[in-house]
């Protein structure tokens, strides 16, 4: 076959090229060398993120909030696509389910955020368990099609079940969580006070997302995560080292669904409303593009992709209404030139720079 990516290592028969298996993540799987890795970049970024409302305007806080939520959504998808090699076209289903769960609980039943938010994860996780059970029995394109079908079913239900989900109009005006307790806290820690509600919500999102991403990081670096990569690399061989592939895939599917649901729960409140299109297939493709843009082969790639995409969108939309055209073109360039995404390109550059001093 022509044009095999010549960075594809070793014997091409090692299960490579199979749909989504050992193929979804490009060769830059090993992260940056340990010296750079030990430096706590993520903590630095998190700390800096807390200063956005102080330093930036309301608009920037809004953008940052958007980025933070989508970063979680994209990272959850990466568990499936980048680490297990399962390409899902219906991940937005769990995002939507989470959003509706939290929205319904908070708006219609007045449940406090601290219960409604985890509930998003639980409900989405349960649905992922049911849907995933059927999906992991299929492979390749059939898997992708079934994830799409389930997502469209979720969309159709949200779109038409007027009594519960508000139908086409969705559920506008989801209340913010109550921040009254901050006033009391501000008496003791003065720097905590004086922010707008949307800022407090931003901080909430930051904390929640940071926790979720920390958990995902642990999962990915755990034996379970390693088993997932063996499935991605060579599912057949994984079977022969005792890995019950279907069970692991289902577990990955559910975990990814839980975190997508949590992201959705946050997003519904942020967006000031929950709408059926949260589950539509084009939303699934947005998050997939984000994951690709940032780099599926790394943990932080998707988060970087979220930042890049949302920032780009913002910049472009102020000049022209033809954002899809630009996005499509960027995607084409990515696919042909930088399949490893931004993170992949950075890592490749780093490697090349490292080699120079040795007298190449």
């Amino acid at each position, binding site marked *: 076959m022509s044009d095999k990516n010549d960075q*594809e*290592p*070793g*014997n091409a*028969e*090692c*299960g*490579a090229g199979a749909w989504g298996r*050992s193929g979804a*993540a490009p*060769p830059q*799987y*090993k992260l940056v060398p340990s010296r750079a890795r030990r430096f706590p970049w993520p903590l630095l970024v998190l700390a800096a993120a807390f200063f956005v409302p102080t330093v930036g305007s309301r608009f920037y806080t809004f953008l940052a909030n958007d980025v933070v939520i989508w970063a979680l959504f994209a990272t959850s998808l990466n568990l499936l696509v980048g680490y297990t090699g399962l390409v899902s076209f219906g991940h937005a289903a769990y995002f939507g389910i989470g959003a509706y769960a939290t929205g319904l609980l908070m708006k219609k039943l007045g449940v406090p955020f601290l219960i409604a938010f985890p509930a998003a994860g639980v409900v989405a996780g349960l649905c992922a368990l049911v849907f995933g059970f059927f999906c992991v029995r299929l492979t390749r394109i059939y898997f992708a099609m079934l994830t799409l079908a389930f997502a469209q079913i979720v969309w159709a239900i949200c779109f038409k079940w007027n009594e519960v989900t508000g139908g086409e109009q969705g559920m506008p005006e989801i209340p913010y969580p109550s921040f009254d307790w901050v006033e009391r806290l501000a008496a003791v820690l003065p720097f905590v006070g004086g922010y707008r509600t949307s800022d407090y919500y931003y901080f909430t999102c930051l904390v929640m997302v940071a926790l979720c991403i920390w958990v995902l990081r*642990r*999962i990915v*670096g*755990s*034996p*379970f*995560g*390693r*088993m997932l*990569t*063996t499935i991605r*690399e*060579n599912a*057949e*061989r*994984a*079977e*022969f*080292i*005792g*890995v*019950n*592939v279907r069970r*692991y895939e289902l*577990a990955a599917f559910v975990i990814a669904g839980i975190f997508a649901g949590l992201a959705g729960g946050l997003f519904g409140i942020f967006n000031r409303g929950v709408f059926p299109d949260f589950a539509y297939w084009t939303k699934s493709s947005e998050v997939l593009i984000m994951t690709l843009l940032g780099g599926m082969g790394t943990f932080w790639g998707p988060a970087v992709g979220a930042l890049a995409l949302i920032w780009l969108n913002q910049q472009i939309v102020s000049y022209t209404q033809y954002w899809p055209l630009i996005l499509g073109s960027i995607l084409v360039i990515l696919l042909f030139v930088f399949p490893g995404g931004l993170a992949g390109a950075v890592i490749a550059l780093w490697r090349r720079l490292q080699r120079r001093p040795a007298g190449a």
Partner: protein
Amino acid sequence: MLEVSKISKSFDGFAAVGGVSFTVPQGSISAIIGPNGAGKTTLFNLITGHLRPDGGRVVFKERDVTGIAPHDLCRLGMGRSFQRTNIFPRLTVYENIQAAFVSHRGRGFNLFTPVERLYRDETESLLGAVGLLEKAGETSGFLSHGNQKQLELGIALALEPEILLLDEPTAGMSATETRDSIRLIERIAADRGLTLLFTEHDMEVVFSIAHRITVLHQGRVIADGVPAEVRRDPEVRRVYLGEGH
């Protein structure tokens, strides 16, 4: 230890394997030989649960394991290597072996421990045993063919099998590599008390180390016994010499 009775499998009417039966005694080194297309790999796939047989039984350690899933078979003590190198290409050599340990020792569903800490010693000692310790940090997909085969062996050994099925372990190797490889396999089998069942094309290899040989032709067994008997068998000679192999 391993008993195969009347195993058969057809694909769309083509009988790849038809009524094959043989026994592999514990501690022995047995070989399955036959010309290309004789059904050797299919037979392996049937034994190891990769394919479901249409008929017949596979009994391992006195347990009927016909058609059970590969991952379960692994836990019972059957290890396997593949003809086309089947490793985890983008993981390093070290990670390949470590993954096998993690899976075999049942820590696969541990979601929180950082994986680097697990099974360091075991992995390193196994890498030493198969001679890949210096290459531990290399991405396995970039290894030479011979090294990948060594890695394959290592992965299979990490599962602490009682019987090891090796599908054409010296395929694609030069004469020296073949000799070294076979010596390594023999030594490891002796050290660990493994039973070996392998398929091969290279007659020299087979006749030098096998205790028992089963000859397949077009999916059926045409000879089965010690090397001396098989060498003399007229049917075998016809199949091999007659086909100009």
